[in-house]
C-alpha cells in the first residue's frame, strides 16, 4: 500500500463532472481531498491517493484520459 499526493487540474469543460467520484468507482484507490479551488474557468484539487502503487498509476492514467492534468504535489521538480 502506498499514499501518494497529487495536484490535479480540471479543464474548464470538466468542472461540473464528478471526476474524483468516478475515479473512486473505477479503481481501487481511496481519495482524500486536502485543498481545492474551483472557480468558473479553473479548478484544481490537492488529493491523496491510497492504494497499491500500480492501481494508483492506473487511476492517474484514468484521470489523464478524462482530460485532467496530474502533477506531483510539489509541482515542477526539474529545476
Amino acid at each position, binding site marked *: 500500500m502506498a499514499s501518494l499526493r497529487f495536484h490535479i487540474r480540471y479543464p474548464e469543460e470538466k468542472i461540473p463532472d464528478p471526476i474524483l467520484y468516478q475515479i473512486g468507482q473505477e479503481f481501487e484507490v481511496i481519495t482524500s481531498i486536502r485543498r481545492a479551488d474551483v472557480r468558473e474557468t479553473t479548478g484544481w484539487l490537492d488529493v491523496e491517493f491510497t492504494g497499491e502503487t500500480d492501481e494508483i498509476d492506473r487511476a492517474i492514467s484514468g484521470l489523464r484520459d478524462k482530460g485532467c*492534468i496530474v502533477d506531483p504535489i*510539489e*509541482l*515542477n*521538480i*526539474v529545476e
Partner: protein
Amino acid sequence: MAKMKSLVCRECGKEYPTKDIHVCELCFGPLEVKYDYDEIKASISREKIQAGPKSLWRYIDLLPVEGQPTVGKYAGFTPLVRAHNLGAFLGIDELYIKNDCVNHPTLSFKDRVVAIALTRARELGFETVACASTGNLANSVAAHASSAGMKCYVFIPGDLEAAKVLGNLIYRPNVVEIEGTYDDVNRLCSEIAGERHWAFVNINIRPYYAEGSKTLAFETAEQLGWRAPDQVVVPMASGSLLTKIWKGLKEFEKLGLIDQVSTKVNGAQAEGCSPIATAFKNGRDFFKPVKPNTIAKSLAIGNPADGYYALKTAAETQGAMESVSDDEIVEGIKLLAQTEGIFAETAGGVTIGVLQKLVKQGLIKKNDVTVAYITGNGLKTQEAVVDSVGRPIRIQPSLSQFTKKFALQEPA
C-alpha cells in the same frame, strides 16, 4: 541557540519540527522556516555581520542551520557592480548589477541555496543528496556533494544537450537519465523522494534550500551601505528566488539593520515560459501552467511551485512583471556584456530585457536606486549567442594588412 523555531505551513499555519519535511500533513501546503526574531535581534548587528566571513555565511544568524557551515563555505558575497554605462544607456542614475555569474564554485546563484541545503542535510544526518535538474542546480549539487564526500544522484530528462550532461558527469555523481517527458521526470522524482531517505534538495529539503536565496537580499542591502534599493528586477523560474529576496529585505528591516523597506519587487520571465508574468499582466492571482519553449532554459518551469507566492509579492510591493522574447534575451545578454563587461547566461538576458522594458514603461524611474539580479554565467549557455556575436577579423601576419583592415593611420 534556537534561532529556528519550526517549519510552518504557508497556507494553514500549522507548525512542525525542523526536520526533512516540506508539505503540510493537513492541507498539503508548502512549509517554510519560522525563526525566533527576538532571539536573533538580541545578537545580530551590522558590526557582527561585517566581522564575519566574506561569504553568505556572514548572515548565519538568519540561515536555517543549527551549527557551523560544513558545505559550500565560500558561496556568496559576490560583487554588487555600479553599472554606470548601462545606467546611462537606460537612463537610470543609480543602477547596480548583483553579479552571481561569479558565484563559487559553479557560477550561478544556485551555489547559495545548495550551500544551505547540504549543510542542513548533513545536520539532519543524510549521507546521500539528490536533485532533478537540467542545469545550474545539478551542477551545484554535484560539485558540492563531491567536495563534501556525500553520495549524489542527479536526475535529468533524456533529451539534454551534451554539454549539460558533461557539466554533471565531471563531478562523478550518479547521473540518471530518465526516458519520458518532463512530467514523467517530475512525477518519478517526487515518488523517489518519498521512498528513499535521501536529501532531495528541492523536494524534502526545500524549506531550508529556498532560504539560501535570502542572502542575495542581505548582501545587496549591506553592499548598498545598509539600505534597501527602490527597485529590484529578479528572474523567475519557480518564483522562489523572488519571494525570498523580499523576505530577506523584510527580515533586515524587522531586525533594525536597515530602515523601512519600500522596495518594488519586479519579476522577469521569458515569453516562451511566462506563466507567472502572464498571470500578473492579466490581473489574476493564479497562473495557468505552460509547456516551456524558450532559450532561457534555466527559467523554463511551466508549473512553478512558488508562482502563486511570487504573484502575491509583486502585488504587495507594487512591483511589476514582464516577459521578453528570445531575441530580446540575446540583445539583453549582449547589452550587459558590451556596457558592463559581464557575460551572463540567458536568465541574465531576461533580467536585462525586462529591466529595459520597465524603464521604458516608466515603472522604473530615473532616480530609483535599482538592482538587477544576474544569476548565472554566460559560458554555460553559449549556444544562445554563438550566431549573433560575429567572427574574428582574419588577417595575414603583416603590419600593412593590419593597418589597412582597420583603416588606421600609419604612425608618424
